[in-house]
Each structure stands twice: as structure tokens, then as C-alpha cells.
């Protein structure tokens, strides 16, 4: 299971000069699951994503994206990753369709028009918006465009960076439903977030990151999935530690 997981990180150490950011991170995200990575500012969440994308080189440890080492073959790793940044910024003067087609072209994909429409529908983007320029789109609508691209790419890995920040509760619920759908198609999803409630709703596993390593690893259990109060307490501890 661990060996075949699309996201596999073992004893990862990353530093920026004298600043150690990840100090022995180990994490495994199996196919068809969502792992939420929580932690205070500077805990190493974004660096974890950057390392998976091949933007940051590891000092030591093992990182594999669907079996590919992103440090050695960043393009190979990126072919297997769909990535949604915190703010999905696309080309304002292009329509949703044009943006999606361009991003897909940069991914090496040329989907049929019908497939793109289907992806937009699946992402919950209203048909009237497909040909509209992105200039007037809300954050939620932009995310739906990006999710549609991710759906079409059918990558084994989906990385989400603070996906629900700035979304209203309804948009958050819609987004979570979408992410769940991607998970159900077999993708391994790693979600970096501050949104504890959203993580508890959608994730199968929640990991707390502190000072560059995982200090608590909780799995969803039973109908309530997670003990929200315990999560809040734990989160408060990591936030205080980060602030200190």
C-alpha cells in the first residue's frame, strides 16, 4: 500500500540556507483518499507542495509522485499532478473555455469540446459562464475552471493549496463535493489548509505539521469522522507553536 501510494514522502529534509523548513517529514497519500495537512504559518505546508511539484530540492529523504522523483524529473512529476493554488489566477481577457484549453495544452492535453463541456458541468460551472471572460468571475468560479481542468487531466495526484480560503460556506460545500468526486475517481489528494471544518468534512486523514514534521496523524472514523473539538485543541497548539 505505502509503496504504491501516488504521494510518498519519507524523512524529507528541506532547508532554505540556514533555515530548516522540513525536518524529517514522512507522509503517504494512497490513491482514492484525501489527506489534509494543517499547521501554523511556517510549519512547512507550502514547502511540502513545492517539493512535490519539483520547485524545491530536498536536502535528504525520499519524495515520489506516482513513483517519480520530482527533484530528478520535475516535468514527469508535474504530468502526474493537478495543482490548485490558493488563488486561481488565470487570464482575465480569455474566456473560461479558452483558459481551460490553454492550461490543458500546457499539460499536453487536447480534449474534445464535448469533454470540456462535460468537465465544466461536473465542476458545477454554469453554462452561461463558459464563454465569458474571467474578468468578472468570483474565486469560486475560477476554482471551478481549474477543477474542470484537473478533472480532464485525470492525474493520479491532486494538490490543493488553501482551496477554501475566501469561499462562502455554500461554495465551500460545493468545492468539497467536487474534491470528493475526484477522490472517488481514484486520485490521491493532498490538501493544505487552515480550514479545519472543511478538512474534517472532506478529508480521510488529517495531519498536523509543526516545525517541519508531522506531530499528529488522525484518520476519519465512524459516522462523525473526526472529533472537531479535539481537532480545534490540537490546531490551537500547533498555531501557538508556530507563533512562538
Amino acid at each position: 500500500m505505502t509503496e504504491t501510494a501516488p504521494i510518498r514522502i519519507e524523512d524529507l529534509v528541506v532547508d532554505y540556507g540556514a533555515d530548516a523548513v522540513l525536518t524529517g517529514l514522512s507522509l503517504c497519500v494512497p490513491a482514492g483518499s484525501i489527506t489534509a495537512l494543517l499547521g501554523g504559518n511556517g510549519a512547512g505546508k507550502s514547502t511540502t507542495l513545492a517539493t512535490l511539484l519539483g520547485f524545491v530540492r530536498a536536502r535528504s529523504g525520499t519524495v515520489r509522485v506516482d513513483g517519480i522523483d520530482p527533484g530528478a524529473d520535475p516535468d514527469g512529476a508535474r504530468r502526474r499532478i493537478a495543482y490548485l493554488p490558493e488563488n486561481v489566477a488565470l487570464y482575465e481577457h480569455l474566456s473560461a473555455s479558452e483558459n481551460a484549453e490553454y492550461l490543458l495544452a500546457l499539460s499536453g492535453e487536447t480534449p474534445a469540446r464535448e469533454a470540456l463541456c462535460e468537465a465544466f458541468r461536473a465542476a458545477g460551472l454554469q453554462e452561461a459562464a463558459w464563454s465569458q471572460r474571467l474578468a468578472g468571475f468570483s474565486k469560486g468560479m475560477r476554482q471551478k475552471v481549474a477543477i474542470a481542468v484537473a478533472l480532464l487531466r485525470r492525474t493520479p495526484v491532486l494538490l490543493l493549496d488553501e482551496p477554501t480560503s475566501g469561499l462562502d460556506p455554500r461554495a465551500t460545500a460545493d468545492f468539497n463535493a467536487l474534491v470528493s468526486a475526484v477522490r472517488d475517481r481514484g486520485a490521491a489528494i493532498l490538501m493544505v489548509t487552515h480550514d479545519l471544518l472543511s478538512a474534517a468534512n472532506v478529508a480521510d486523514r488529517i495531519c498536523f505539521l509543526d516545525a517541519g514534521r508531522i506531530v499528529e496523524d488522525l484518520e476519519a472514523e465512524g459516522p462523525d469522522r473526526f472529533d472537531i473539538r479535539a481537532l480545534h485543541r490540537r490546531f490551537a497548539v500547533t498555531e501557538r507553536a508556530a507563533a512562538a
Partner: protein
Amino acid sequence: MSLWIYEVGLILRSPVALIATLLLAIFAGAAVLAGLHEVSRQQAAIAAIPAAQAEDNAAVAVRVAESQDAGSAAYYSFHPTWNAPSTLAFAALGMRDVSPHMLRIRALGLEAQIYDGETFNPELALPGRFDFAFVLVFLAPLFVIALFHDLTSGEREAGRLRTLEALPHGGRALWLRRSGLRFIMLWTALGVPFLLGALVSRAPLAGTAAFVVIVAAYLLFWIAVALLVSRLRWSSVANAAALAAIWLVLALVLPTLANVVINRALPVEQGSEIALAQREAVNGAWDIPREDTMRRFYANHPEWDGIAPLPETFHYKWYLAFHQVGDESVADQVQAYRTGLERRDAAARTLGVLLPTVGVQAVLTRLARTDLQAQLAYQNDIRAYHQRLRAFYYSYLFHDRPFAAADFGRAPTFVEGG
């Protein structure tokens, strides 16, 4: 291929890129037209020479008909020389705007005639005329800056950089594609007007191809500078300011400083000073005994000695002899002047290896044969022709042979490069 189409689509929706490219094409087109017009004006002036010369000869023939004095014929006859523009001169006018491309000479003292026409126009001396070379060397880098200063920083500022770079074809390949596309746009904006000009001018294929390659190389140099600056990850505004400063230093400050340094290190007197010295030598000859002058003349030209004695009255062979002696009295100055110019030119070409703005101008004017070398070669042609003229008139003068109307037609004619 589809990625290129998407990139073309993106850049076609960028007003800055489109306006910049269009403006560069307009500048290049205007420069090519101005160059063609100037070359055409010079060609027309050269083409008008035979008719004007025939008219001039006829007038002088009437004047000389009665006396049949070869000295009068030599004194009053002007003989045209010209330096026709090459077919690539329209693109790099070089020294053709500050140096004469036509000179009517007489068989008298030559140096004053050559250097009398040497003018110095400070307004044109530094940046040169508005020609294609000017647009390429001085203006094109500004358009490179306009299209490249925000290549990556613009995406970063718009928040798209991470999204793009996280895609398999969105990293280095994306920047190479975008850089390539912008390069092609700029190259086309410069290259198409130039190629049309070359077509109109019937420029040779090799020279035209060399020009096109130099345009590409020079653009690539500035693109490389812009990409190096972009690696510093500054803001678009900071990139633009840094690139503008680099342009100012490379295109204006360093060449100007280098010019000052070269001129100070390699002092060369003005050509007009040679003309003045020669004139003083010639005018001074009226005040010294004729025999002294003739002795000096015969010492250098024994072939004319003892053929016919100098009469007591005025004779043109004495007059022409002291003109030639005047030329010979400034020969060292002339040689020093030419050597100085050539050393300055060599220093500038050496500088061109380090400074692309200077180097490209030097190569373009060499290809267009509008540089100092071409100017000196024209002077060599004039000198060779003048020697033939002297020999022609001396053969009448020193043998006391009459100069008939038909003899005007026997005078040697100027041959370019001959």
C-alpha cells in the same frame, strides 16, 4: 504546434506587444524608405554627371580653343569622380552623410581639393542619420525591453506563475516559446521592411542574408540581457528600469566615452588643416624663385626634366609643378592623417567586439561599404585618377604640345575601384 497557436493567440491580445511591434515596423519602414530615398538621390546626382561634364567640357574647350594651352585646359577642366552607393547602402548610410560621395577635381594640387570637402557635422557625427542601422542599434533594444521586461514578472504579479510552472509544459519550455515568439515578432518587424528595401535595391543575396543574421543576433543579445535581468526576480517596473539603464550605458554612454578615449589616445589633425597647409605651400611658391620650385619638382619627377626649358614668362608647367610640390610637402601629414584614422577605426572595431552596439554598426557599415575603409578606398581611387590626369596634362605641357579641342576627349576618365 497547438501550444504555439495558443501563445500567438495570447500575444495577439496583448495591446502593448502589438503596438510595440507595429511601431518598430513603422520605424524600420520609415528608415528603409529614408535610406532608399537618400541612395536614390545620390545615384541620380551621379547619373547626371556625364551630361554636366559634357557641357562643362564644351565651355572649357571654347575658352582654350584659341590658345590651345594645355595648362589652361588643366586649370579650367574639372573631372568628376564618384563613389556610387552599394546596393546595401540604404540600410546603413554610415559615412556617406558626412563624407563626399562626389568630387570634381582638377589636375592641380590634390590634397586641398580632397580635404576642402571634408566637413564635420556634429549633429550627425554621433548617432548618425536615421537609417535602418540606427533603428536596429538604438531603437530596437527599447522594443525588446518593452516585450521582455515582464515576461515572467508579469505572470508572477498576476498570480499565474505557480499555476503555469506547475504544468508539464509550463516551465522553461513555456518561457522559451514565449521568448521565441516575441523574438520572431521583433525580427519580422525589422526584417520585412529591410528585405523589401533589399529587393527594391537589388541587394546581393549573401549581403542581405548577412544583414538578416546580424539583426537576429543583435536582437538575441538584448533578449539574453532581458532574460538575465528577469532571473533576478524583480518586479516588472524594476526590470524595465534596469534594462533601460543598461540600454543607456551600452548604446549611448559607453560608445560616447569610448569615442572620447579613442580620440584622446589617438590624436588626428583635421583634414582641413592639411588643406590649409597645402594651400600655404602653394601660395608661398609665388614668392620663391621659380628655379627652386622646378628643382624640387624635377628631383622627384626626373622624367619631365630637360624636355623643354621654362620660358621667362608665366608658364603653366611651373604653376602645376608648384601645386604638385605643394602636395608633396604635406605628404607626411596626409600619411599620418590616414594612419591615424585607420588606427582609430581599428580601435573602434576592437571595441565593437566588446560592445555590441558599436560592433553591429561597424559590421553593417562594412557590409554596406559605407564605412571609413570605403571612404579611404574612394580617396585611393581619386588619387590614382589624379595621377593619370597629371600624366595626361603634363605630356602636353612639358613637351610644349598644343591642346586641341579633340584632346578633351582623350583625357582619362574616372573608374570606380580602378
